[in-house]
């Protein structure tokens, strides 16, 4: 079957941090997770935007918690996309959230193999960037086989580095894996982290924000070469100046690269990463060379 943007939809959950997706692409939908302050529950981005969330986080006496969408939430989204013959449903790493499981139940309910489930094994803008790579192919016509290969390659090859101000947020949500040992609160320790096979893992730790940036440069330039096929995404949690510094760094080091996403981490990802988090993502997409 020939897949196109007219017959194939892309569903992401809100941890892709791409709330404007449906406005940009008529074949995209975002299913929100939930964030809860005390007894009040909000749909990520829909009922609680990032700005409001971080403002509230600064004064909150009790820290928020998050929960995955219900299978019914996904079912509604899939049903709403009834006009599409195929749905690619892309989700945050199943090791980090139960969201994938919830979506899969809905996909099984739909049946017939119409919904293709993808555990992206990553988070935030990295999910969006995979969706954008899929979209580029849909716009020129593609096949399930070709997309499967793309998804496999994406999981293998996409790069992701981030740093947090404190590991406390990751630790509290139990999403820290073996990065736990990277703590070191006394000195201004910045852990450099990545996500590998759906798990947050430490790369190294450095002292201070400037050294964190130097480490980003070193790893990024070591892993990439300049060119228009190099796609980059940047995400931050209430730290626009750090995101801007990263953008400038990417511009300086890889002037031909396309920075296709710059986003704020939403309430859900922000709950688990904590304010001050900044990270970036890259993938060499040769879609135009086929």
């Amino acid at each position, binding site marked *: 079957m020939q897949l196109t943007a007219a017959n194939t939809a892309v569903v992401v959950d809100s941890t892709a941090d791409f709330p404007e997706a449906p406005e940009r692409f008529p074949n995209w939908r975002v299913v929100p997770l939930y964030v809860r302050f005390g007894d009040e529950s909000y749909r990520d981005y829909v009922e609680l935007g990032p700005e409001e969330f971080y403002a509230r986080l600064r004064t909150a006496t009790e820290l928020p918690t998050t929960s995955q969408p219900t299978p019914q939430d996904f079912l509604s989204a899939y049903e709403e996309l009834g006009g599409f013959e195929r749905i690619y449903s892309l989700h945050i790493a199943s090791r980090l959230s139960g969201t994938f499981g919830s979506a899969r139940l809905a996909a099984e309910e739909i049946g017939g193999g119409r919904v293709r489930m993808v555990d992206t094994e990553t988070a935030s803008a990295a999910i969006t960037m995979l969706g954008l790579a899929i979209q580029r192919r849909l716009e020129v016509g593609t096949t399930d086989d070709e997309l499967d290969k793309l998804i496999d390659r994406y999981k293998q090859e996409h790069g992701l580095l981030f740093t947090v101000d404190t590991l406390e947020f990751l630790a509290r949500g139990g999403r820290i894996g*073996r990065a736990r040992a990277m*703590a*070191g609160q*006394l000195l201004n320790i910045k852990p450099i982290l990545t996500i590998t096979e759906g798990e947050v893992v430490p790369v190294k730790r450095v002292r*201070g924000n400037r050294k964190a940036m130097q480490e980003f440069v070193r790893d990024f330039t070591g892993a990439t070469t300049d060119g228009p096929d190099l796609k980059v995404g940047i995400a931050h949690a209430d730290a626009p100046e750090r995101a801007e510094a990263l953008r400038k760094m990417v511009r300086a080091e890889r002037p031909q690269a396309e920075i296709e996403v710059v986003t704020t981490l939403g309430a859900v990802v922000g709950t688990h990463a904590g304010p001050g988090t900044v990270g970036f993502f890259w993938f060499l997409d040769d879609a135009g060379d086929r």
Partner: protein
Amino acid sequence: MSDLEQARALAHGALASLERSRQRIDDLNVYPVPDGDTGTNLALTARAVVEALETTRAEDRAALVREVSRAALMGARGNSGVILSQIVRGAAEALGNAEEVDAATIAQALRAASDAAYRAVRRPVEGTMLTVVRALAEEAEARVSAAPPVPELLTALVSHGEEAVARTQEQLDVLREAGVVDAGGAGLLEIVRGIAAAVSGEELPEAPPSAGFAVEAIHQELSRYRYCTVFVLEGDELDATALEAELEPLGDSLLVVGDRSALKVHVHTDDPGAALSAGAARGVLEGIEIANMHRQTEQREERLLHAAENATDVVAVVAGAGNRTIFESLGAARVVEGGQSMNPSTAELVAAVEALAAPEAILLPNNSNVILAAEQAARAAEKPVEVVPTDSIPAGIAAMVVFDGARPAAENAAAMREAIEAVATGEVTIASRDAVLNGLAVRKGNYFGLAGGDPVAEGRSFEEVARAVVERLLAEPREVLTLLRGADAPELGPLVAELAAQHPELEVDVQDGGQPHYPLLVSAE
């Protein structure tokens, strides 16, 4: 299969089974003292046998039996390891004499193993490894008349062994109180399980779960003696009984086993020196190990509480309470107090390294006068140790920042060496006498500043000397400046404010290090 191949297969099976339960067995360990190392000791003892079998040139079965027995004895670690070495010896001798291995041979081997184990212990206690090996022997003997095939017999022995291990909890008060089974017995069962699997050619069954014992198990009384002291004595006509009599008043958990040419000694005592002297009077000492069991126990509690398993742990030599906290917060598993004018001994460092939970170690001397002792300790230690030659506490901190316990010691050491290359260090001390150093006249009692080992300033004003040191370090562009304030040092507030104004890009980190002799330690990176 040749005898050697068969022996290798069995030893590998036993070791593999032990290794995967090592931590669980360590955590069971409350008897005779809760030193939390029974699993490790058994595994190391088994590994010694495996290694001997890998390299042996034994030409016949008798030689093979001798080599296996000797390897187990020489490699025996801890009480449980020594008892295991006797079990191995008893069994190996019986198997060595047999024409073919059948149910009857196995029963004989287990009986010989049990007898040897009981002989090794001065006052046998039931509810331990001894009980389990005897139960296995009795069960094998009871089944001989039915002449079961060997794999079937071994399977039956494993399940009988499981019952025997479970019963240890009722046989020994300390185990009942702790709600655990005997660690040595559990280890022996894993060995039999591994051998049974090797003989049947089947995969090892699922390891028993590690959960399910009471939290009280981690709060056992400490042994009244502090040091676990182990050595091998080599000589002619060694008299085990006489040595035993001499060592007995020194402590408890005494074991003296071996033959006239080599004895393995294990004792828990407050006076390891006296134990060593008693040995040295009779022969040549080898393989001396002295471990502080109170520390081992603390560590075990730590491990149970945090359940973190590192490939590499760090031992750091540190002076000052604040500095100790910094090293610990960066993940140093052990801090040995020491530094300028109080250098730790090689033995202290060896003991610290050996007591680490991780299989490999990094040693950070953090003082140029400690580097040599650290290197000696690395050679003497049983586990692989990398010395990263940090010559100051700030250099040590720079090394710790890049430490990642999940990676092997060699990788960590390489990253740490790179990190200390990138850091410049300095210090302010107080001159202990009048001197002229590199053309700088230094007066006794004055502040005296060095940067990268070179004298840069001296004088009565702490602030001026400190400023000169810092300025020298900032001559090159730097990102982070760390100031470690010493014990009884003047305030750093004015200097820090000045630095913030002059170097707005610089991240300045001030910590109370608490080190003696150096009012200020500095690093720039």
